[in-house]
């Protein structure tokens, strides 16, 4: 048998890598189920942001070069070319705004999130999260494990800030029981004292009924 430097655990990495499985199979510490969605959302945020932004800016830069060259070639003024460039950039940003906003909020290092829990917990209970950023007015709300909403009803998210409760938006879950929406809080860094997700008739103007998940 080959003798190895006892300092070198790397030489036995293959064998040692099996040990965490033994620990996990008997440890009293159990992986929180809700962590899965958080990790996957964070990965989506990082993964989507990397390829998309360079592509957008590359397109924008290329468009700017084309516009500038065209303006020179055809004798247009530089101001006109720059104005066109700004318009093009705005259009590009707008076309990707829906998804990117989600990722910019959810994936931000300074994002703050609150968890909405069901009154009665359990592995199958509905839950939700609301993400905010101190430097942004954009807010992302999402919920999972929601039962299908009956016809004419949807899940209403009521948020309370500075003593004022308002409807942030509604969620109609997909077939997996998941739904999300993005809304503008109207000011940067909103901080909510409470959040309630309630199944209500569409068009409800005030919270009513028992929340399916809430944060207080």
């Amino acid at each position, binding site marked *: 048998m080959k003798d190895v430097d006892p300092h070198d655990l790397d030489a036995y990495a293959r064998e040692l890598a099996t040990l965490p499985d033994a*620990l996990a199979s*008997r440890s009293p510490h159990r992986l929180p189920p809700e962590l899965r969605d958080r990790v996957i959302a964070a990965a989506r945020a990082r993964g989507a942001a990397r390829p998309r932004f360079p592509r957008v800016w590359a397109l924008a830069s290329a468009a700017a070069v084309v516009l500038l060259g065209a303006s020179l070639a055809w004798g247009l003024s530089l101001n006109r070319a720059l104005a066109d460039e700004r318009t093009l950039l705005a259009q590009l940003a707008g076309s990707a705004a829906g998804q990117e906003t989600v990722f910019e909020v959810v994936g931000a290092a300074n994002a703050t999130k609150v968890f909405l829990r069901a009154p009665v917990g359990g592995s199958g209970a509905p839950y939700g999260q609301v993400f905010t950023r101190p430097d942004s007015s954009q807010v992302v709300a999402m919920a999972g494990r929601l039962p299908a909403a009956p016809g004419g009803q949807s899940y209403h998210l009521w948020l309370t800030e500075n003593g004022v409760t308002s409807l942030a938006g509604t969620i109609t879950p997909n077939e997996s029981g998941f739904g999300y929406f993005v809304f503008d809080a109207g000011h940067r860094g909103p901080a909510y004292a409470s959040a309630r997700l309630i199944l209500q008739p569409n068009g409800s103007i005030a919270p009513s009924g028992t929340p399916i998940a809430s944060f207080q």
Partner: protein
Amino acid sequence: MPSDEELAAAVARGDVDAFAALYDRFAARVYAWSAHLVGPSDAEDVVQEVFLRLWAKARQFDPSRGRFVVWFMAIARHHLIGVAKKRSTERRLAAAAEIEELLSRIVDQRADTEGEAIDRVRGDAVVRALADIPAEQRRVLVLAYFGGLSQSAIARLLSEPLGTVKKRTRLGLQKLRTALASIQGEGG
């Protein structure tokens, strides 16, 4: 069912479903280890960071150089030990000792029941292998691997000469390799 290596290749292409599948296979291991070493409250952040590193580095995984689990657990251990080293040495010693005590209890329990019940669940091949290693050798392995403790620190913890710890480490590693190879051979 796709292999870990196939899933890793898909993750390298940005496949979120493959990423989720690898999370389902390995997150519990990272979480349990982290919860013991740095506490449950920080363990969630460790798991998230480890898997985000997987997401970012999956292209670097080369299946010709070894199995995915080895590569991934090396990433997990590197990050987790780094986090643990920001805590006091005493706390890390205590946490590593707790893991060692738990694994010893598992091995003892297996011996008590002759492995009948325990052999049905995941991780049993490793438990069987650990059972084949003398307790004092197993202890230094667990302290070094799970706690990231140097052999000098282990020698101080156990009040044993450094040379003794080095010898136990070497023998323990060799026996772990032999035991795992033997069990894998039994499994076909």
